[in-house]
């Protein structure tokens, strides 16, 4: 079905198709291109009528000055630490649990899997208040631990890995067992190498979600010491309201890790978003 697609008729000439898709692409791209252009301009240019679509001069100092207007190096470091930690814990726990659910049967399995499914359906907003109270009672407010631990495992990740690992033939695991491999060796030497690409997709999605997360840091963070990039951006925008060009410049820098990850892994990211029906 995917090989040769249907041509709907001679009316859908390639030119018309490209014209219409190009229009949609333009609508998506123009705000981004405008942002890149504005980040190198001045505040006056940004508000000029008629709209100036092309830069007249390049102000790279918007970037250098914007990035020191707030302790952004701390924010970037915090965001990286949190995102990397959450990605590691999520990938490890999801791989282990996915394998356990896919390849073992034990009493209580369906109950435990139901817990995974339900936690995948519960929106964060529905539990943020008790989570705040819980984290407060552990003394984790305003700490990176408080940012990392509650989001360290995701139901989505476990579900995704379980779905994938169910597709690995039992015969492969059985063969390794006959060769004397321990259960952990079967997991480590046979299953994990096969799951590498879906683990990479999960890692990418988890990193993106953590890097972009705003609401939980907004609740946990109380000082610039533990602030992450999205919070820092919001604070920059709140305190320096009319310094548009620098705010845009720093926003674009904040998007760089996301863009890099997307360029490398866009195919996996798009398919995992789509097949799951669950968005980061």
């Amino acid at each position: 079905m995917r090989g040769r697609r249907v041509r709907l008729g001679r009316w859908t000439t390639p030119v018309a198709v490209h014209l219409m898709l190009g229009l949609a692409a333009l609508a998506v791209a123009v705000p981004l291109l405008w942002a890149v252009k504005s980040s190198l301009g001045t505040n006056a240019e940004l508000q000029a009528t008629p709209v100036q679509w092309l830069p007249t001069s390049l102000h790279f100092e918007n970037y250098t000055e914007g990035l020191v207007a707030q302790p952004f190096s701390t924010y970037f470091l915090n965001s990286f630490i949190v995102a990397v930690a959450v990605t590691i814990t999520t990938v490890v726990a999801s791989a282990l649990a996915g394998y356990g659910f896919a390849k073992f049967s034990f009493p209580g399995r369906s109950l435990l899997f139901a817990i995974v499914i339900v936690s995948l359906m519960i929106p964060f907003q529905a539990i943020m208040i008790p989570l705040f109270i819980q984290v407060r009672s552990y003394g984790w407010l305003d700490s990176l631990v408080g940012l990392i631990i509650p989001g360290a495992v995701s139901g989505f990740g476990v579900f995704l890995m379980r779905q994938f690992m169910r597709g690995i033939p039992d015969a492969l695991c059985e063969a390794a067992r006959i060769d004397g491999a321990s259960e952990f060796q079967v997991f480590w030497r046979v299953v994990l190498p096969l799951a590498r690409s879906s683990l990479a997709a999960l890692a990418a999605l988890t990193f993106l979600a953590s890097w972009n997360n705003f609401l939980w840091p907004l609740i946990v963070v109380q000082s610039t010491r533990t602030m992450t990039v999205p919070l820092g951006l919001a604070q920059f925008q709140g305190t320096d309201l009319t310094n548009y060009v620098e705010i845009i410049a720093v926003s674009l820098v904040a998007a760089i890790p996301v863009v890099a990850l997307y360029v490398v892994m866009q195919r996996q990211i798009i398919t995992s978003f789509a097949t799951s029906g669950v968005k980061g």
Partner: protein
Amino acid sequence: MTVAFSNTRASDAAADTVVRRRPWIPRLTPARRRSLVGLMFVLPGVAPLCLFVIYPAFNSLWLSLTDWDLSAPPQFQGIQNYLDLAANQQFLHSVLTTAEFAVGVAIPSAVLAFVVAVLLDAGVRFTAWYLPLLFFPAVLPSVVSAILWGIMYQGNGVVNNALGTRIGWLTDPTWALPSLIILLVWTNLGYYSVIMLAGVRGVPREYYEAARTDGAGWFQLIRHITLPLVRPALLFILVIATADSLTMFVYPYLLTRGGPGDATRMLSELIYETAFSFTNIGKAAAMAIVLLVAALSIAAVQFRLLRSSHE
């Protein structure tokens, strides 16, 4: 890890020697042992979910039955918060706004995504690069999108300057919600298109060929074959838009603070403000439970749709 699993070798002989060497480990039948190993594998995933998702969900339920300002001990007061919500104009208005936002996003998104999907599926060459571009805003940090669009939407911003208007996109009560809707459609168009594309590609090719030999034109093909067959995908987009609307926080919080007035105060933002600005924990928790019930119902529909589309 390795230590924990060292007594679970498949070979009985090996396992027996391990057990004999460490007599405090009870002797297990191979089936029991495998069960235990399976349990050990799922525990690192399931235990944190119980502690940081399931337990808080029940905690939300308990908090919703109390009156609490975070300092004095919570006072149990039964279903009072729910009774109050049923008469709370701001809450009811925010439920309505959330629904309006969902429908407002779903309808243009479904139309646009359908058009994009049909065009991408038309078999024209060099169209593969459109989707990654259209999808890109969905991976941008929502704070970044909010900041960019906030600046574009300003009174003397680029949107007004390009259109030659002077509309207060985010400050005018009639325009604030539509402006946020446009922003979310921009964010999610590629995502919705991917879902729609899966639906459009699922239409069997023979249907088109049969209809074409009967003399149907492209419009008739789309109207009578594609459209009816992608109805599940259309419904799916409505469901996802509703879920997105229920959890919509960053855009109203950063761009309008729920205003002007309550014009863009959607449920998630109202819960946040009630809990963390007004420290009315019980009332906010009751709203969170309403949100939870709505989200679980939507997820149930979503799962059913996914299952039927996979069959």
